[in-house]
């Protein structure tokens, strides 16, 4: 797959505060990329730069081969965006909300029903957007972002504040878009979301990327103990080194049926982030 999004040395400051400080990213087409960081880390600022809503102070950023500082209306049609503060027309129905954008993009009315069906809002087509639950509002925003069938989706904390069921529904929609070959740029401060959805992630802290890779790679990288924790059927716990030396003992425990559960000591992303920054991701 070609590189869908690329940034080189992006720097952005607001007044004396540097929000992004030398961001380098290469995001392949067709993958879900997660940008993780606590509130105020600069995630939304980076999305705004990549979508042409803000201009960086220095560095370059590309969507495909197009410099994001030179994006045109036709380029905007290639990507869908949902941001938490992007509003809906509360008094208009879900259908009317999408109808406005179908008219703007010159899309047939069938695109509205298709988009509503894709996010499971067909039954709520006539419901005013202001009367939707938070989860349904999130799905309607996704439907609006999907309408032009964009190549790239920028989703800024799409499950923020949602209950687990609604979040799961949005995860399903995001994964189905990936299955269709779409590139997804996702920001989140939820570690489980990143682990569930993302092929690659970057951990952002105070404007800098402090770690990059697949969630598994990153967690393995910070597995300093390299141990296996085994819970035995007699209720005891034991630890074995996570290498070939433990193979015989481990094999014996499994064959004899004494090993009830086996876990590696890999940290989760939250722990890795804490180790790198001394902060919690969800802070």
């Amino acid at each position, binding site marked *: 797959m070609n590189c869908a999004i690329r940034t080189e040395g992006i720097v952005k400051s607001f007044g004396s505060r540097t929000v992004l400080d030398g961001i380098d990213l290469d995001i392949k087409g067709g993958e879900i990329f997660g940008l993780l960081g606590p509130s105020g880390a600069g995630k939304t600022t980076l999305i705004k730069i990549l979508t042409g809503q803000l201009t960086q102070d220095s560095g370059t950023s590309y969507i495909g081969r197009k410099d994001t500082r030179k994006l045109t209306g036709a380029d905007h049609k290639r990507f869908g965006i949902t941001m938490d503060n992007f509003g809906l027309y509360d008094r208009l129905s879900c259908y009317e909300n999408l109808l406005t954008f179908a*008219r703007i993009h010159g899309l047939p009315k069938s695109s509205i029903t298709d988009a509503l069906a894709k996010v499971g809002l067909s039954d709520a087509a006539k419901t005013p957007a202001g009367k939707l639950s938070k989860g349904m509002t999130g799905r309607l925003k996704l439907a609006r972002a999907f309408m032009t069938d964009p190549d790239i989706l920028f989703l800024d904390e799409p499950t923020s504040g949602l209950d687990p069921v609604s979040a799961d529904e949005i995860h399903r929609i995001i994964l189905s878009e990936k299955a269709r070959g779409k590139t997804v740029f996702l920001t989140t401060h939820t570690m489980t979301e990143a682990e569930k959805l993302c092929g690659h992630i970057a951990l952002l802290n105070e404007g800098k990327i402090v770690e990059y890779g697949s969630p598994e790679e990153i967690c393995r990288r910070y597995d300093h103990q390299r141990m296996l924790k085994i819970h035995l059927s007699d209720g005891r716990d034991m630890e074995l080194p996570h290498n070939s030396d433990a193979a015989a003992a481990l094999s014996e425990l499994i064959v004899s049926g004494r090993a009830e559960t086996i876990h590696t000591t890999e940290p989760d992303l939250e722990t890795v982030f804490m180790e790198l920054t001394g902060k919690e991701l969800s802070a």
Partner: protein
Amino acid sequence: MKNIIAVFLKQLSDTLKNKTVLIQFAMFPVLVIVFENAVKLEDMPEHFFARIFAVMFVGMAPLTCMSAIIAEEKEKNTLRVLMMSNVKPAEYLVGVGAYVFVMCAFGTAVFAAVGGYTGADLALFVGVMSAGIILSELTGAVIGVFSSNQMTATSITVPVMAIFSFLPMLSMFNDTIKAAARVTYSQQLSELINGIGVSEISAESMIVISVNLVIAVALFTMAYRKKGLE
């Protein structure tokens, strides 16, 4: 053009659901029908209420609606979504402006019918009302662009709207107010409407209205350059 139409139709869909805007479009046209039919005073000029309410309508409805619509879109960040969908600021403003103009045209039709205007008088009345609607729309757009949310817009709109709507009526009772009101377009519109079929269009009215237009355009340009539509 399709973006202007999309914005126009979006506003049209919202009309019956947006009571703030609907009441502005409907209040004076309804009031004029009621008052012209229910209130008959001795020595009252013919179609008195049609003339006075028409000016109040022009000073209030387009101004309030433009500022309310723009401020709401800014507050709820729907305007940013439109901009990200390749709707140009000028297209948005023309779309909203055309919507407000069309809705006010219905009101103008009511005033024209109740006021009994026909032929050349009708054409002049429609022309005067149209000029007033455009000027008030520009003033409302200045407030909408300048305000970051609806509360700010309302707090600015109310006194401005009161000046343009009520000065022509108040100037009937006080010469000092009348002298001060002469520099406002709404007072000149009032004099033009009162003069239909009676006197020629005065140069003073044309000059004041033109100066008001230039000031409104200048203020809009300044507000837009300073605040944009974000």
